[in-house]
């Protein structure tokens, strides 16, 4: 009997030790989540590769079907997670406000697909770069400095992206697009709503504002730009 009690005590000690050990490991990963999300954002910039894919029939077919299929899969998984059929524990790096709401990454992906599919390159490219690079940069500035620096720094970084994407345009149009785009991106990032993620807003708000300018271009004396402002050209690959 005494031996059984001793064994039970030993077992209890082992369990407590293992629990404390695991707890320490969980605490250690906290810093990692933060940088994981930042790296994940920056990773999104690689999706610009979409524009480099050659214009071949089978690649065009893949370009048409694969991105929506990925997003639909993500939405289904998120719905299952919210309904409790898939545990939130299987998702790394979610924030508390995403517990009962669709995760930011789905908003991020939906906005990227809408931009790639429906907007011209000079609008889509800088908007995607704003979500992928400006958003984490503004997040880091918010961590370290006061809010007014977030607006200033974010505006300048976004303006850089828009001016790179519109560098082929007339100087007046370049300045207008850079200013309006950067303004939209900063507003989209800083105004947070529970139901609509900033990863979606930072892309769609400047895109809509620039879309209006794009449609108005022939009426304000710049003519229809067509594909003349494109900056990424489809690749010419052996296959």
């Amino acid at each position: 009997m005494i031996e059984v009690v001793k064994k039970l005590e030993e077992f209890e000690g082992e369990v407590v030790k293992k629990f404390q050990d695991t707890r320490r490991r969980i605490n250690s990963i906290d810093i990692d989540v933060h940088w994981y999300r930042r790296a994940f954002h920056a990773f999104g910039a690689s999706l610009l590769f979409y524009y480099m894919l050659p214009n071949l029939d089978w690649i065009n077919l893949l370009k048409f079907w694969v991105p929506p299929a990925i997003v639909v899969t993500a939405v289904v998984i998120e719905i299952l997670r919210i309904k409790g059929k898939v545990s939130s524990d299987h998702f790394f790096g979610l924030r508390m406000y995403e517990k009962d709401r669709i995760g930011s990454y789905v908003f991020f992906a939906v906005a990227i697909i809408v931009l790639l599919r429906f907007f011209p390159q000079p609008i889509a490219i800088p908007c995607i770069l704003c979500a992928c690079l400006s958003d984490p940069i503004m997040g880091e500035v918010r961590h370290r400095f006061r809010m007014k620096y977030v607006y200033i720094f974010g505006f300048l970084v976004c303006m850089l992206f828009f001016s790179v994407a519109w560098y082929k345009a007339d100087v007046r149009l370049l300045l207008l697009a850079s200013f309006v785009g950067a303004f939209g991106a900063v507003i989209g990032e800083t105004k947070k709503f529970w139901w609509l993620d900033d990863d979606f807003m930072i892309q769609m708000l400047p895109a809509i504002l620039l879309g209006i300018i794009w449609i108005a271009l022939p009426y304000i004396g710049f003519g229809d730009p067509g594909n003349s402002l494109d900056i990424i050209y489809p690749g010419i690959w052996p296959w």
Partner: protein
Amino acid sequence: MNKEKMSYMKTEIKNYDKIVRAELLFTPLLIALPLIIGVFLIYDWYVRGFSENNAAFTGQLMLGVIILIGNIVFDIPFIKSLVKSIIVLSKSKK
């Protein structure tokens, strides 16, 4: 949004190892793909733009540089924190 809502969700102990493993497996893609795309954009500028004296490809060079720098800036602290986590993990397993 308040700080509590902005904090990260905690993982249940039983799933912790699986998640760290998934993160580690995903890391090479997360780091390598943007760097490859950035280098490829610069390479394409060199082959079709610089070599053939075609200024239309300058945008690809600028985008390539932005993607490379942007990713390196965030990848370095990410790798540092990952290495730190792995060290803590391996120490706690001993």
